[in-house]
């Protein structure tokens, strides 16, 4: 027993040192990327930002900075993808939204349509909405247990439950991570050809410009069946597409 305590302490200290070393390494990558981006070394900054994102948790800020560096490296397709990812992580990131519209203009594709969901998520923090909804729902549920004999209290509890569930549903419905989970992005600089059937020599329906977003309906090997922004459907080769939400 006497020997076990020092050994546990030793292990803890070693783990802390390793963790702090790793953390300081990540921090170095990010600060290095930022300093290089500030000095105009965008190619190297992009490499470091991407390295950071591979090892660290995703961050709207880092994706935005990566997008800025890509834009300054004359790669608007990659820039638009990273701005989109920044917006998925933080829909209230207005600077990223403006940057995305500029990147879309550079790509020559029409700006994203603005609907009520976009307007809502750009103003209301979804996590706060979700947590509020959950808390309100639970309060309502506990109130039903406490005072079911008093009618007014019961109505109050029911309205709390309804409001809470509505807020949770709204947060679920508007969360871009749900909405974009089946969407892919045309990253290839040569665009993406849309075929009528999943065969190389099948009829070509149209060609999507880089920066276009398509909704994936199903996949068959290297072929993806999806819906175009205009509503038409067709087959694409997965090589030219990148998932909007990175696949881990």
């Amino acid at each position, binding site marked *: 027993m006497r020997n076990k305590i020092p050994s546990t302490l030793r292990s803890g200290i070693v783990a802390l040192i390793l963790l702090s070393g790793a953390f300081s390494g990540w921090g170095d990558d990010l600060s290095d990327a930022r300093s290089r981006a500030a000095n105009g070394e965008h190619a190297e900054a992009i490499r470091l930002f991407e390295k950071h994102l591979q090892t660290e948790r995703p961050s709207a800020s880092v994706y935005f900075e990566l997008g800025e560096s890509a834009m*300054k490296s004359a790669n608007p397709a990659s820039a638009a993808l990273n701005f989109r990812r920044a917006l998925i992580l933080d829909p209230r990131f*207005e600077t990223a939204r403006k940057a995305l519209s500029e990147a879309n203009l550079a790509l020559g594709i029409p700006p994203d349509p603005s609907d009520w969901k976009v307007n809502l998520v750009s103003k209301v923090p979804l996590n706060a909405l979700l947590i509020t909804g959950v808390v309100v729902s639970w309060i309502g549920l506990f109130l039903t247990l406490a005072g079911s004999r008093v009618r007014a209290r019961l109505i109050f509890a029911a309205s709390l439950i309804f409001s809470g569930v509505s807020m949770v549903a709204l947060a679920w419905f508007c969360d871009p991570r749900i909405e974009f989970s089946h969407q892919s992005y045309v990253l290839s600089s040569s665009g993406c050809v849309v075929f009528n059937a999943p065969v190389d020599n099948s009829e070509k329906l149209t060609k999507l410009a880089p920066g276009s977003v398509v909704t994936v309906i199903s996949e068959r090997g290297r072929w993806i069946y999806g819906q175009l922004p205009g509503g038409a459907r067709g087959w694409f080769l997965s090589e030219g597409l990148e998932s909007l939400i990175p696949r881990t």
Partner: protein
Amino acid sequence: MKMRVVILWVGLLLAALAGLQAQEATAGLSSPSTSVGQPVELVVTVRDSRNAEVPQTIDVAGLRIELFGRATRFEMNNFKVTSSLTYTYSVVPLNAGEFTIPPIEVKVDKKTLKTAPARLSVMAGAPPALPAPQPLPNAPSTRSDVQPPAGQVTPYFGDLLLSKKKAYVGEVVPAELRYYFNSRISGEVGDRPNFGGEGFTAQKLSHVPKREQIVNGENYVVFGFQTGITPVKSGALEIPTSSLEARLQVPGSPPPGFADIFQQFGGALPPGMFTSSRDVSIDTKPVTMEVVPLPKEGKPENFSGAIGKFKMEASANPKKAAPGDPITIKVLVTGQGNFDAMGAPELTDDEGWRSYPPTDKFEPADAIHFTGTKTFEFVLIAKQDRIKTPGLKFSYLDPATGKYETLTQAPFDVEAKAGEAKPEASPVGNVTPSPTPKPESKASRSVVHVGGDSSWTPLFKQPFFLLLNLAVATVWGLALVYVLVKKLLRSAWMCRRSEAGRLKRLIADLEACEDGRFYDQAADCLASLGGADPESLGEGIPNADAEVLRSLSERIAESKYSPIALAKPTADERGRVMQVLTSLVSQYAK
């Protein structure tokens, strides 16, 4: 001998069946359209008749129609014999226009039959292209001379029709592959022919609905496939043979001796009585096209490869644009030509505007992408305050005239303000006018944004959130159980049940009590059973028991105030009291 009788009977039966067929007269043109001086055939068919009278000439202004042939035909299909007379007229168009050939009167025996009127379209100049159910564009037609030999019935043959035999490099030439099968033969036809070659590209073959056509007086079923051929180099272009596989039921020979039997009765074997299955490959004949390069004379600078006949429409939206807001010019190029290869129109007078490469979308109006509408969208942002958008210019080569044409669109009136949307809304700084922005020209900004999630998984899918809610749900579930149990315990049924248990315990104590406290305990029992009025217990019970209760009540009252309080009850009294109280407790518990 028996065999001959059987065959005779069969022959008579077939003749009788043939007599049941209704007589009718039909008329059909070998082609629904032609040009002045190009004759077509009008075939009048009279079914189930050996003799008929038809007019030698038919009077139609602008057409010369004369009878020049008569033929008799016998057919046997599935042991059904039909005979028909065919009269062939030559129709020579004298003028261009639309003509209706009136019903032709056919006298059969004592009856007069009438055909349906036939319509003929006559064009001035060369014959029209591809008279198909799904017509191709109005271009002069040139067909390879694959025709069945006159006077001989050909069971099947192929044909390639080109809308023209001289084309420019890059021009789309509509073509149709046709495979003719004599209507008397049946069979199965392959899905599509093999078609291709060097020196040209072809659109995917598109099915033309099956139809019937008269060629040299014979009725044929026609399978057609349309495509668009685009020559890629100048010179003589040979379009090779294309083959269509088919399995046909072709007329076969009868078993040995069968024909001899028919001949003994002086008759010939009916055609179609014996068939055999045969796999065949029907070929079209190769056709040579003359391909010429695009003319250099008069070629506009903005010519982007469009060859055909087009018209252009454009619109601009919105009419008012705030600083940084884009204006979209939508251009519709409609017509016939090589849409797949054409470039976008050119913007003119675009000074003060920032523009980007347009998007395009093609909506074909036919299966071979020769006719349709191509939409281009230009996104423009004003660099300076502007009241007019840029204009548009679109040039193409008209293959009919061999000259370049230029379509123009005047600038639209708009109100566009220069500048960026908002200072803070310009994350990438001032974008240069070039389609690919030059990054170093933009103001560098350092934005370290704080906020947003750090996970691609939404909060409501994260384990921590789910576990927390599960814990709260567990607490709520336990609370619900507690509330329900509490409610149950407070219910009247549970109270009565618990009181019954207490009374049973009292009875047990009373039974064990043998001294003077017996009446005190019996009084407790009675009080529990009847509340403040033990007398009320006497209602609804036998008289004997009620008497015992009254006696007990009196004895209890006496025991409170008299010296007999400590007197022990007799065994008889105990027995009767115990019996009545036990009975009352049992009823109470129920």
